[in-house]
């Protein structure tokens, strides 16, 4: 699930380039760009206004506003919104639930069944 994977990567709070992320998720860089725009549109991700071109709220109060190394081209700071975090929590709960179900199912197999002649 591409959008889920992107959210999970952003939630790690690490620095990663678009191309590294695309390689990690085995998609084109263009898809990453499109998917992130979609997540922002759906309000799961939030890009402080102007990041990548000028400084916004994430640089508020920084004496470097407007002149730091991130002013040109590149840096996009993505923050997961409240909705995004809630969604991630649901995802994580589901994954953990599925893991429990798998281990539960393994325990349910009776030894006798393994040896029944077919």
């Amino acid at each position, binding site marked *: 699930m591409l959008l889920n994977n992107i959210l999970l990567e952003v939630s790690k709070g690490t*620095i990663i380039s678009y191309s590294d992320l695309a390689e990690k998720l085995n998609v*084109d860089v263009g*898809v990453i760009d499109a*998917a992130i725009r979609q997540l922002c549109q759906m309000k799961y991700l939030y890009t402080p206004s102007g990041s990548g071109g000028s400084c916004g709220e994430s640089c508020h109060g920084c*004496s470097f506003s407007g002149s730091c*190394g991130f002013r040109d081209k590149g840096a996009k*700071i993505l*923050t997961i919104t409240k909705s995004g975090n809630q969604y991630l929590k649901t995802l994580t709960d589901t994954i953990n639930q599925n893991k429990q179900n798998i281990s539960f199912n393994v325990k349910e197999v009776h030894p006798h069944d393994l040896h029944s002649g077919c």
Partner: protein
Amino acid sequence: MQAVAQKNITIGLMGQPNTGKSTLFNGLTGSRQHVGNWAGKTVEQKQGEFTYHNTTYKIVDLPGTYSLAANSEEELITRNYVYSSKSDAIVVMIDASQLERSMYLLSDFIGVRVPLVVVPTMIDVAEKNGKKIDYKKLEQRLGVPVVPIVATQKDGITRFLSRLETATRDKKYIGTDFITQKYRENFGADFDKVITALPKSGIGNYSSPWIAAKLFEGDDNIKTLVKEKSDGSSWKTVESILNSYSDGAIIGANCKYEWIDHVLANAVQVPPKKRQKKSGFDRIAIHPIWGKPLAIILVLLGFIVSIIVALIAKVITEVITTLAAQAGAALLAAGTAPFLVSLIVEALVPGLLMVMYMVAFVSGVSFVFGLMEDVGYMARVAYVFDNLMSKLGLHGKSVMPFLMSFGCTIGGVSGARVIDSSRQRLITIATSWAVPCAGTWGVVGLMSSLFFGVNAVWVIISLFAVAILHMKFTSWFFERGLPQQEGEAGLIMELPPYHKPNWKTIFTYVWSRIKGVASKALSVIMVVAIAIWLLSYTSTGNIENSAIYAVGKFLEPVGSIFGLSWQLVIAFIVAAMGKEAALGAIAVLFGAGTGVSSLAGTLVTSSVAINQTGFEAALLSAVQAPQALAFIFAFFFNVPCMAAVAASASESQSYKWTLKVAAYYFITALVLAGVVYWIALLIF
């Protein structure tokens, strides 16, 4: 002669921006086109005509859109056109060089009952990039004609027209089975329940599964449409199901990406991804192996540069100290009260000098870090260390304050300013106190070698090992107490290009840092210096006549739990003033240091005359090995110095938080001392 029947066919031309729509449109219609605006909209509308095999084709150039989500005026126009049954077929252009991205528009078309022709363009660009696309396979999987063309080439147009003619006759739609299955997997039985509540034949050109998917995605436009076209009870059923889905949009979008993967699987071959070769300095700066050592070297060089200013301040400090001592002697000779002279010479003057030294150091650090940030190198350091720092729950940029802290914690704390996230900044500050600064080694080196000889190396190793665990624990501890920001910020970025430094900006930054630090430093350092002076002043110079001696003796029973005698307890407390001062303070406490009437005077190390041989003998006779080890640990992990405390208060803008950090370090230092002491008792 029989008249040839003329047919009129209407075609909608759709695609994402920059897929060559206009090129194809112009190629087909030539001068037979008309430009206007969509009714009631500001968006341009282009219509044209062409004839092929006795059929007149009217072609409408729809606005470039990324999807049929109706998030913009253009998307709404396109959607309404598709809904309105005006066209006999829709031609969807997709960029073959960015196939995955382009296919999203197509995915939004699944379930729309308008015959489709898919036209991959930019096939020459795709081929140049090494992409091999099996268009026949794509056609099989999509279930509609796929006609790859280069929009400027005539033979492609001819093939396109032939397939278009067939498509308008055969009326094929994109297959819905896979994506419907995905919707069912993700929305469960609710998906079919919604379909059942909708009109069986759909609405307009929209099939019920398409409408259901849009409803789950929260499409307001479609909700309004369904509400209009359904009876009340059906709408209520739909509404009650949809109310339990707040994340339908992302689930739906994920299904579409899965459909794209399914369609393109084994139909597209791309050349193996080569790591993009970095150019110039970046070849080393972000090299997976060499990037880290380079960053460490540059940061340490930066530290050396930053202390040049501090060293100049240090020289001035020494001169002023000497002058102050001479002035003090003169005042005493003139009959000034000794306690007043001591207050001025051993508390006020050293306190002010310490502020001056601190401000000088901070200005150097700010300049170096400011320069690195401005030229773009800071981003590279953050990039190469991010993985490692994240294991401590920190940002890649945190490595720089840590490296600076090896020289001086003030540098580390001030350096944390480069971290954008306030939460990460605070955690970095709190954690950097655990990094041993240069001033630590005077006492640790002396005590370790004096009490443990060649085994001192094991003492140092264990200190570092515990320091790493301490930092991890500290990071976790302080992260808990900090308010959660709206979300943890992940930084997805392309590294910014290097550029020439803007000196005006850098010096403005340095000046603002100096102003911020100086005021906080003055208040904190002066208060502590005066407090220590008050507690430790004696007119005779004998520490046993001071209040701090009484405090030390009072605390000795408690101190002994942690392996600390009264002298070591006081030394531990006073070391929080400044680690360089600790050596002079210990000398005074063990009767081997003279020249000061208070422990505040030890702030200026040159003011204490230490009898080295007597000092070592006094230590060896008064302190046991386990106590020495306990003190080493207590000293190592104590509050770094009051200048670091002042810098932290300035950086965090919170005295309360800073005091909390100081209390944490004070307590953990004692706890570690206690643990080490009792273990050492078993060994020695």
